[in-house]
């Protein structure tokens, strides 16, 4: 199945072949298909919330292309990097509420994030600072090397001016915890996050 994604690094793949059970309303305006949705990140937990969205009534306005009965839908993808599962859950909830059609992927460490992000397009990365293993600055630096297109921000409880200055100097954003909709929106509004065809 993954071979079908060759060259496609940022799409949610929707299997529109006959006999698939999942009902996905991804065009909006009442048009229905019976599909299975699989993201390039595999059958990740985050796919569930994406599917839930597509089962809802919201319409999808991004780009899509077709091939061999599959629809490839470009999603804005956000990678959450935080060693606290609770923090990831809270962040996911806030983002999903404000941006229900985003694909949200999680990593519990900088090391895991590098693995997950390898070869994939990620629009937004939110990185905790104090983590086991490499810290958020190191993770941001390494991820930035492979993902010059990504918008990266720290998402941390460490509100010290020195941390904020270092983030600015490193060309990454700074969002303080606890996360809320206003803060994440302010960060995203500061720059365009768009999925391109």
């Amino acid at each position, binding site marked *: 199945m993954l071979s079908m994604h060759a060259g496609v690094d940022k799409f949610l793949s929707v299997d529109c072949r006959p006999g698939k059970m999942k009902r996905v309303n991804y065009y909006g305006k009442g048009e229905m298909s019976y599909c299975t949705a699989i993201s390039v990140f595999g059958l990740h937990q985050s796919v569930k919330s994406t599917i839930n969205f597509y089962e809802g009534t919201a319409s999808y306005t991004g780009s899509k292309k077709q091939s061999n009965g599959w629809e490839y839908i470009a999603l804005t993808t956000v990678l959450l990097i935080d060693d*606290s*599962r*609770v*923090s990831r*859950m*809270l962040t*996911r*909830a806030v983002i999903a509420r404000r941006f229900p059609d985003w694909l949200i992927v999680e990593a519990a460490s900088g090391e895991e994030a590098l693995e997950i992000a390898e070869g994939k397009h990620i629009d937004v990365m939110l990185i905790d600072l*104090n983590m*086991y293993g490499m810290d958020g600055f190191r993770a941001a630096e390494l991820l930035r090397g492979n993902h010059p297109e990504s918008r990266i921000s720290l998402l*941390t*409880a*460490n*509100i*010290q*001016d*020195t*941390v904020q200055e270092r983030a600015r100097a490193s060309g990454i954003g700074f969002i303080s*915890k*606890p996360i*809320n909709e206003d803060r994440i929106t302010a960060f995203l509004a500061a720059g365009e996050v768009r999925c391109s065809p």
Partner: protein
Amino acid sequence: MINIAVGRAAAALNQMVEGEEIELSVPELCFIDRADVVSRLARDAGEAPTVAIKQGFSGLITGNILLIFPENRSLDLVRQIIGDVASAEEMTELEQEALVEVGNILLNACLGSLANMLGRPIESTLPVFMQGGINMLLSASGRPSGMEREDLIMFIHVSFKMAEHKLSGYLACVMDIDSATAFREAIDSYVYKVVGA
């Protein structure tokens, strides 16, 4: 200055519990013998089992900062914070992690705003969770853990209360006397800077 730092922590907690008002006591600052720390803490906690999140810090000042709750009310707080995003099962499983995250955000808010006011960075360790009687704060030597050197320490104590959830707890900061001296000097220079005297 402690008022501002703790106020910042309370503001962070207030956001996490979606606007519930948090009453803070006037911070108490005293120099006490380290042997008295436990009895001083026990005076507030009583014999009831407590949970605490402890974070060590170093830099201009070195010590430990603790957020302490009675154990029987802590699940209420967890429910308030992650109740919307976690199932009942997950909540029990995540209770400890959620409290660590609460502690992480509060303690960092407090330490971070102190560091910002003093204009000097403070390094902090990852927060750890502790459970048991107030004696858990003791190390094997019978002294408060992490504080092995001087006999006199500076002790800052602030209690807080969330009326709606009948939850109260307190924040205690223990630092050695060298730190206390450096702390006082930094405060002097902060006051000098602000007042311009």
